[in-house]
C-alpha cells in the first residue's frame, strides 16, 4: 500500500530565510508526486508535480522540489520565503495513470514570521 509521510507538522521560519518541507513516500510501483498548498479558508492549489523526466521540478511562487528515488523523498524547498507563503502544504502521491486518486500526507504548516 502507498503512504506519504510529512514528518514536520509545523515549520516556523523567518521572512527571507530558506525553507525545506520534507516528504517521504512508500510505494512498490512507479508514482506521480505532488505538492499542494492550502491558504487559510481556501481550497487546494497545485504547487508542482513530478511525473517523469528531470528530478528537479520547479513550481509556482518560487518553490521547487527534488524527486529522489533511492531515498523515496520529494522535499519541497524555497530559497527565500515571504509572509504570504504562510499556509498548509500537502505532499501527495498517486500511482501512474491515476493522478486523481491521491494519497495525501498529514500536511505541514509553514509559519513565516517577520
Amino acid at each position, binding site marked *: 500500500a502507498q503512504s506519504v509521510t510529512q514528518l514536520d507538522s509545523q515549520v516556523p521560519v523567518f521572512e527571507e530565510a530558506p525553507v525545506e518541507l520534507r516528504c517521504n513516500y512508500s510505494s512498490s510501483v512507479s508514482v506521480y508526486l505532488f505538492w499542494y498548498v492550502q491558504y487559510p479558508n481556501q481550497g487546494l492549489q497545485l504547487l508542482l508535480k513530478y511525473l517523469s523526466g528531470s528530478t528537479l521540478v520547479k513550481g509556482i511562487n518560487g518553490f521547487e522540489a527534488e524527486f529522489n528515488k533511492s531515498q523515496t523523498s520529494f522535499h519541497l524547498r524555497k530559497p527565500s520565503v515571504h509572509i504570504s507563503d504562510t499556509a498548509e502544504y500537502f505532499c501527495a502521491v498517486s500511482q501512474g495513470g491515476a*493522478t*486523481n486518486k491521491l494519497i495525501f500526507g498529514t500536511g505541514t504548516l509553514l509559519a513565516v514570521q517577520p
Partner: protein
Amino acid sequence: SAVISQKPSRDICQRGTSLTIQCQVDSQVTMMFWYRQQPGQSLTLIATANQGSEATYESGFVIDKFPISRPNLTFSTLTVSNMSPEDSSIYLCSVENQGNTEAFFGQGTRLTVV
C-alpha cells in the same frame, strides 16, 4: 485548467439531518472525486463519482452514508446522510484534467454538525 464551483461553501446542520453538496465544473471531465478533510487532518478520498453508474467507494465509506450522483460530465452531488458531529469536516470536489496529469480542487464545503 478547470474551474470548480461548490455549493454551499459552508453550512451548520443539526444532527440526524442530511446535506447535499453540489459540484459544478466549467468543462466536461471524465473523472470526478470527493474528498473529506477532517479538522486538523489531511484529505481522504471518499469515492470516485462515475457518470452513468454507481460511485466507487474507498474503504471505510459506504453508499448509505455518502450517496453520490453524477448525472452528466460536468456535475456531481455528495450527500452526507444522518449527520453526527463526527461528520464535521471540509468536503472537497476534485476533477482530473484532460491529460490525466493534474487534479483540480473546488473551494470546499465547510460542514459543522451540532
